[in-house]
């Protein structure tokens, strides 16, 4: 690393900026995607007016929300009330820093397709996810509104409950890899394409299943969106929020969806690797070689997002006791069983 620190820093800042902007853009268009898809599922069009196929809709929405009146209701506890959406959004955006979305390619000592290649990437993800709960919990509490409070309590209880299962489901992956570094995790899935993905070759389909469900709960998405069950709690924890603060919760939710998709891709679906492994011959120049993995990565995340929306359009909402019971009674023991099975399997395979 014989590059000057300043160039390194400059490039990194640039990288961060690009990634963040891209992420925000994808958040905006995920919203559009959802509206469109749900519209189709429900046999209607979704947004069509702004721009071609309604493609400018997200921008219009953003602009509108920016210009809306920013209310600061009388009974709120101001510092936390203001801080809550910031926490929520930041946490959604920070996780991206450890996700590798392409091969390791250095330009002037800067890793192009990953912001920070730390050896505890998985732990960072878990940690940041945990902090995200604060945004929800604080927003509800500081709002001084019964709906908000109930919503946030439900949401946080749900999030922390499913975080357990989520965390435990990752242990299987770590067992197979022996590292927390996300690149290592991807590398081990690279050899035989689809067959060596953790979800198949690593025999982690149970873990993937647990992760999938937990991820839905973590992001407070249908069928686990009880925290914002319109019929009983208005809008849940962000009832009292308006204007951009509301938008930030919104962005956080979709940001989290994307992040969960990324993590799932990295952990279970082989990351940026091609599903065909070595079956396809390498072709194209270095630029293509560099960008192709990113393509695979994006495709996989997109599939995941599609799944999200599909589920939302299809499934009804859980009852709260069912939700908690499912998490604690079913997923938690299941994930422990998965760990035991995986470790046993690994022990015998190693011999």
């Amino acid at each position, binding site marked *: 690393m014989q590059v000057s620190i300043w160039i390194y820093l400059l490039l990194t800042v640039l990288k961060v900026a690009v990634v963040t902007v891209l992420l925000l853009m994808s958040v905006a268009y995920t919203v559009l995607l959802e509206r469109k898809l749900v519209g189709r599922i429900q046999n209607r069009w979704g947004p069509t007016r702004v721009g071609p196929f309604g493609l400018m809709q997200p921008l219009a929405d953003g602009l509108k929300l920016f210009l*809306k009146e*920013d209310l600061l209701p009388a009974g709120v506890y101001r510092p936390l009330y203001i801080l809550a959406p910031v926490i929520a959004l930041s946490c959604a955006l920070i996780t991206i820093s450890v996700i590798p979305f392409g091969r390791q390619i250095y330009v002037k000592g800067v890793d192009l397709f990953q912001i920070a290649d730390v050896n505890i990437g998985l732990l960072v993800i878990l940690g940041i996810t945990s902090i995200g709960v604060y945004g929800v919990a604080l927003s509800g509490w500081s709002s001084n*509104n019964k709906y908000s409070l109930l919503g946030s309590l439900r949401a946080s209880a749900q999030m922390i409950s499913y975080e357990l299962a989520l965390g435990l489901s990752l242990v299987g992956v770590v067992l197979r890899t*022996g590292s927390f570094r996300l690149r290592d995790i991807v590398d081990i899935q690279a050899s035989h394409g689809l067959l060596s993905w953790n979800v198949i070759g690593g025999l982690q389909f149970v873990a993937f299943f647990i992760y999938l469900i937990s991820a839905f709960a973590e992001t407070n998405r249908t069928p686990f969106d009880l925290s914002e069950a319109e019929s009983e709690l208005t809008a849940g924890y962000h009832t009292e929020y308006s204007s951009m603060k509301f938008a930030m919760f919104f962005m956080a939710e979709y940001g989290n969806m994307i992040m969960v998709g990324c993590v799932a891709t990295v952990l279970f679906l082989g990351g940026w690797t091609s599903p065909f492994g070595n079956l396809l011959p390498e072709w194209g120049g270095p630029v293509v070689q560099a960008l192709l993995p990113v393509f695979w990565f994006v495709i996989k995340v997109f599939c995941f997002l599609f799944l999200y929306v599909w589920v939302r359009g299809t499934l009804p909402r859980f009852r709260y006791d069912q939700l908690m019971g499912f998490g604690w009674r079913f997923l938690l023991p299941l994930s422990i069983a998965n760990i035991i099975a995986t*470790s046993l399997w690994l022990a015998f395979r190693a011999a």
Partner: protein
Amino acid sequence: MRSANYFWNYVPMLLQILAACGLGLGMVTASWFLGRHRNTKVKLEAYECGIPVEGDARGRFSVRFYMVAMLFILFDVEAVFMLPWAVIYRDLPRISGSRLFGFWEMLVYLGFVLVGFFYISKKGILDWSSDKGDL
């Protein structure tokens, strides 16, 4: 040098954190200054679907939420123990000289975790729909 490298790995992450927080704060500030403010008393009241506001929201709520919090703390930390074990699991046979050493150790550990799990389950803490677990 190794450790220097190690620290530099985190610098981009720090930048990302700064960016994220800055973005969040920036958005909050910007919208505060951009939007108009025409406050009325009713507008600033808590929103309860238009019905006049009743009392304060900071009352008492079901103890189950506390229970979940406590259980989470415990089980989460128990899960934390599994992570380093998982990392080193594949090397354990080499280190300990016994193929199933790591497995048995974790089985004992998980056994105790499950004992706790079984206990709270039987005590009805996980039953949200009944009031049996109202401790």
